[in-house]
């Protein structure tokens, strides 16, 4: 375990670094939007808005003011804690994000479970069969799926498993005929499980499987590739030879000496994959009619709605930072030689 006196300064350093990156991200998106499009009032108010509506939008978001005044009001809306009001829907941005984000989290978490299982297993098998037909087959498979765009995977899955062999629904998060369930975490299948609502839970699982499996199949190559090369690094190393020479049973050598060492490197890429998936689900959400944060962000981007875009970018950036942090902590748990704060793990 990590001694607390090492952990706290490390945590402090990481939190400070994260705040720096978040402020940098916020200012950068603000300036890019401001420089490229200083008066988006007509975009936010809609194509057929009257002059008075546009004037109201301009007044509410201080769009007629110089950039530093706009930036001031903008930062002020963050101190209230709800990121201000969405100029297109008139609702609080925080409440909209609270609705969309758990949906994406559900999709990403289910697909992460599949990615870790598929990636670790196939990487291990390929590495242990290095140079054989099994190895080639696994590598060609994961490189080929990794090379496929999401829309190919998504449309093929819908075509085959919703149309030719109708096994799964082609879109949505749950059956529309079910009674709505109470909102606790916002993650539908988790809420259904907590409330012991079997029907809603099964419907949730039934709807999430196909989009999550497409995401997992197209992205598990990232994990499998690193897993395979870490297995190759570990299996011919001197400590494995030493363990075998000692007469350690083969199963124990593989489990404790090869697999455990390979997992140390793989854990970083799992964190990277998680951060990447959070913002990488736009196309899948679009195809499977999944009301997630990626879809929400996409709508904000095409209407140049930066009051909404900025909190979304901050959320994704925060996701990447948190995932890297968790990976670093795991890193030191798996490998006692690596102390936190020495720059041993993946840096934010």
């Amino acid at each position, binding site marked *: 375990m990590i001694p607390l006196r090492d952990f706290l300064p490390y945590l402090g350093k990481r939190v400070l670094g994260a705040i720096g990156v978040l402020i940098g991200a916020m200012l950068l998106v603000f300036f890019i939007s401001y420089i490229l499009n200083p008066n988006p009032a007509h975009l936010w108010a809609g194509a057929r808005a009257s002059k008075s509506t546009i004037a109201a939008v301009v007044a509410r978001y201080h769009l007629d003011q110089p950039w530093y005044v706009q930036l001031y009001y903008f930062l002020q809306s963050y101190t209230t804690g709800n990121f201000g009001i969405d100029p297109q829907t008139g609702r609080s941005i925080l409440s909209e994000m609270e609705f969309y984000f758990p949906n994406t989290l559900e999709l990403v978490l289910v697909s992460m479970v599949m990615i870790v299982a598929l990636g670790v297993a196939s990487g291990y098998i390929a590495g242990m069969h290095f140079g054989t037909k099994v190895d080639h087959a696994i590598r060609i498979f994961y490189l080929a799926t990794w090379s496929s765009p999401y829309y190919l995977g998504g449309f093929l899955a819908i*075509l085959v498993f919703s149309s030719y062999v109708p096994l799964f629904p082609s879109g949505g998060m749950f059956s529309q005929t079910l009674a709505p369930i109470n909102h606790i975490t916002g993650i539908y299948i988790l809420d259904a499980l907590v409330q012991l609502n079997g029907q809603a839970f099964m419907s949730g699982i039934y709807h999430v499987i196909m989009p999550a499996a497409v995401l997992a199949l197209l992205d598990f190559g990232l994990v499998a590739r690193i897993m395979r090369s870490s297995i190759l690094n570990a299996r011919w190393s001197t400590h494995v030879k030493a363990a075998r020479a000692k007469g350690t049973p083969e199963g124990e050598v593989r489990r404790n000496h090869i697999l455990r060492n390979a997992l140390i490197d793989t854990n970083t890429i799992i964190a990277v994959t998680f951060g990447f998936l959070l913002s990488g689900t736009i196309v899948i959400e679009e195809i499977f009619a999944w009301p997630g944060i990626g879809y929400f962000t996409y709508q904000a981007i095409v209407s140049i709605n930066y009051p909404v875009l900025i909190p979304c970018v901050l959320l994704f950036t925060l996701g990447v930072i948190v995932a890297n942090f968790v990976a670093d902590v795991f890193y030191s748990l798996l490998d006692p030689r690596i102390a936190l704060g020495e720059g041993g793990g993946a840096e934010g």
Partner: protein
Amino acid sequence: MSTGAAGLRKLITSNVLSMFGLITASVFLVVTVAQVVSSGAILPYNAYQPNFVQANLSPSLSHPFGTDLLGRDMLSRVITALPIDVGIPIITVAFSAAIGIVLGTLAAFFRGWLDEVLMRLTDLFMAFPTMIMAMAIAATLGPSLVNVTFSMIIVWWPPYVRLVRGGVLAIAAEDFVSISKALNSSFLYIVRKDAIPNVLPTILVYATFDVGSALLTLSTLGFLNVGIPPSAPELGMMVSNVTYNLFLYPYQIILPAVVVALIVAGFSFLGEGIRESLDVKLRPHIFVRSKPAKAIETKTQ
């Protein structure tokens, strides 16, 4: 290992992955160049002229990819998209590598505050979600091919700076660089003669793989109709324009998407294969790889 062209050929042909990648990537490059040079003369049919008599034909010998709902030959339409779908990713990666070489070498040689500023900036850009930033910049700039290339480069350069900086730092610690410095060689001379030739192979291998990733991002921008002008032929956009035909004429959606996957696979298989062949740690095990794994195990012990 032999050097020069023969060494490179052996390197590529010794690996199944890089062989497949080389062939696929070359085919697409050749067709792209032919399409650009002949300005469309290689197309089997006119890619823009509607022909309603032949609308929505399934793939056949005369139309290998079928025809779309205006009766235009899909194969011809896919070929007209290649200059954009192969060209823009290559331009993006080339510019990113150039930025990486300049900034990475500066950071590694001068260290101090310059290094600190450049690396913090790189960290900041790397923490951003690539896809979202590219979309946001492309959307605010407005649809045009120059803008979409620009927005791709903005999010694409950071890994190259890190890669070059790391490589140059490793070389700067070598004796031959210290000696060169002691002999009063100029900064540019050391960079040109020692630093760049030593980092370039790593960058080239990474960049080859990366062309595939860049195309995935580009065609996703096209699929989401962000940044790419509606008049420009792009495979992702071609797919998104006919999604309503998925159940009626699936080939109109699946075939262009498969072409994207093939181009990406060509470059990434080539890059991945070369990277593995160059891996010094694996080299003792590669040349006995036709034997089963058990035999290798005993041999190395």
